[in-house]
């Protein structure tokens, strides 16, 4: 065996070529696998959003039938708390992945934002009709690098929603190209000074920590704190 060592100093291009092909194949497989798993994630989110859409439609139909049913039949948290909330975390995670179809992700974000707006409108109607003491917080952020406090504001709202699971927090990408969102920005007179919070239809700009929000919303105390684990509400960054 040792004698075979001799006389092979000259480069053997065949082995270099084989090694290159194998290495390239490993890279291609890794990229394909990563892409495949991300596509699976996107498909999962899409399915969830479709289900939410059906749920909202169902709730809207319930609401239309409210005259024939009592408010007890309207389950306030049936949509948002169960499925809509975790989606924001998942979308946020996918935004950080390099091998994700950005077009598809943008489409999912727009869909998500639309579902949030529909849920918001519906829940406001339900709250009015059923005289519920619901608290709504709209959070506007930017992830284009022009909002250094947006990430922290997201963490604050996540922590807040964990403390007060009945709190209804909706997060929107200020720069998202969605006509319904642009209309909502216009109605609320949201300026491009992010992060921005709309709390009970009043705008607040700049980072607000939990104490600030508790000060703005003294009625939070009546919602009651909970120690139970609930799905995270995390602003899309």
């Amino acid at each position, binding site marked *: 065996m040792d004698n075979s060592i001799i*006389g092979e*100093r000259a480069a053997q291009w065949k082995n270099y070529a084989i090694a290159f092909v194998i290495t390239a194949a490993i*890279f291609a497989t890794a990229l394909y696998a990563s892409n495949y798993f991300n596509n699976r994630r996107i498909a999962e989110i899409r399915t969830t959003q479709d289900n939410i859409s059906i749920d909202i439609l169902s709730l809207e139909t319930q609401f239309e039938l409210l005259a024939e049913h009592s408010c007890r039949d309207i389950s306030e948290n049936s949509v948002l708390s169960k499925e809509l909330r975790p989606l924001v975390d998942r979308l946020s995670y996918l935004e950080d992945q390099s091998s994700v179809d950005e077009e598809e992700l943008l489409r999912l974000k727009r869909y998500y934002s639309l579902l949030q707006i529909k849920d918001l409108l519906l829940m406001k109607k339900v709250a009015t009709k059923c005289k519920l003491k619901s608290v709504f917080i709209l959070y506007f952020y930017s992830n284009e690098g022009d909002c250094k406090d947006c990430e922290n504001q997201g*963490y604050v709202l996540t922590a807040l929603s964990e403390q007060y699971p009945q709190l209804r927090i909706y997060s929107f990408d200020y720069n998202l190209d969605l006509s319904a969102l642009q209309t909502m920005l216009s109605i609320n007179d949201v300026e491009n000074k992010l992060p921005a919070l709309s709390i009970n239809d009043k705008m607040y700009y700049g980072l607000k920590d939990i104490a600030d929000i508790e000060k703005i919303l003294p009625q939070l105390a009546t919602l009651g704190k909970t120690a139970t684990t609930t799905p995270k509400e995390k602003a899309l960054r």
Partner: protein
Amino acid sequence: MFGDGVVYTLLFVSLYFEVFLLVTFLEKRAGRSASSAVKGVSSLPRVCIVVPCLNEEQTLAHAMASVFALQYPRELMDIIIVDDGSTDRTLQIAEEFVRACPVVGAERHIRVFHKKNGGKHTALNLALQNTDAEIIGCLDADSTVAPDALMRVVSIFGNPDISAVTPGVHVKKPKTALQHIQNAEYALSVFNRFMFATLGSVFITPGAFSMYRTKTVRDLGGWRHGHSTEDMELALRMQKNGHKIANAPAAAVYTATPKTLKGLFRQRVRWTYGFLRNFVDYKFMFGNRAYGNLGLFILPTALISIGTGIYFFVRILWYGLENIYDTFARIAITGIAPHPSFDIFYFNTSALLIIALVTITLVLILISAGSLIGTGRRMPPAGTPLFILLYGFLVPLWISAAVFRAIFKMGVRWR
């Protein structure tokens, strides 16, 4: 985006290097017996074993015991202990070996020289001037050698084209976690050295029991200081002059390794410093087709690996610290510590992680291959998991220090 490009490029080079070695290894092994039995040698050459010492009173006896246990005719062994200005009892211990040694023919086959401290290369050159043996090699006083190692090495010199043979170097009785990590590293080195020999690209002939044709070393002018890495300098000089260096992985040598991080750091700074300075001295070999695989692939990749180590270390450190800072900032703002998610949705399936896992798996395979050709054992050393987990974080420490010293030509000390 630029950062990702650099990461992918460096990972590609690292993976390519491993795949290339593995492809070549499998090609060489195909259809060949795995047996590494010693071949018969019709006439054995006279061999000079030099044991250079500097304050080795604790270890010299072990090294000498292993030399005496070598399965090689005594009359064909010329053992030279060179005391390079020791200030402890090294010289007395060496002389006791001479007194206890029987006379073979008209002369004792063990001699002791004492000289003023001048460095390992001067000790070796003194022995070179005072031997008539056909083969000469060095055994560091902190190392021991397996009984059949010399015969395995000498059998390769049966081929007249071979000018030097390197052994398989292993960690001597690993005890601490750090030594077990080094044990896995040495198993990987056994594989690499074997493959480099296969590619005619050995650029280090370890001080622990590498053997040379005496005439070759004399013709080349003997050993040089070589920025405190005389073994690397001589190997590069041999390559420059077209000499062939073989490897006998089953010729086992066991060397003492640092027990502490401080000791390891000092040793590796010296090695890496010598590596870099010798690279500068022999820079004409880089990318030079005249030196085949060595010039075109092995040396450039070795240099890139230094940059890769530093780059990944800085990147991991940077993002790690940033992550810690963000987490503390988040806790400070919200008052709540983030809790990990076990949702399968968040399981990391990035291409980067998949490639990194493949690279680690290949390292594991190469270590196992090194263990197989070096010791015959199929299982990798026990320290392999620790090696894979921690080594990447240790290497940049001494690489950075060595690069700094090499840039400013600050030099390094042996001890």
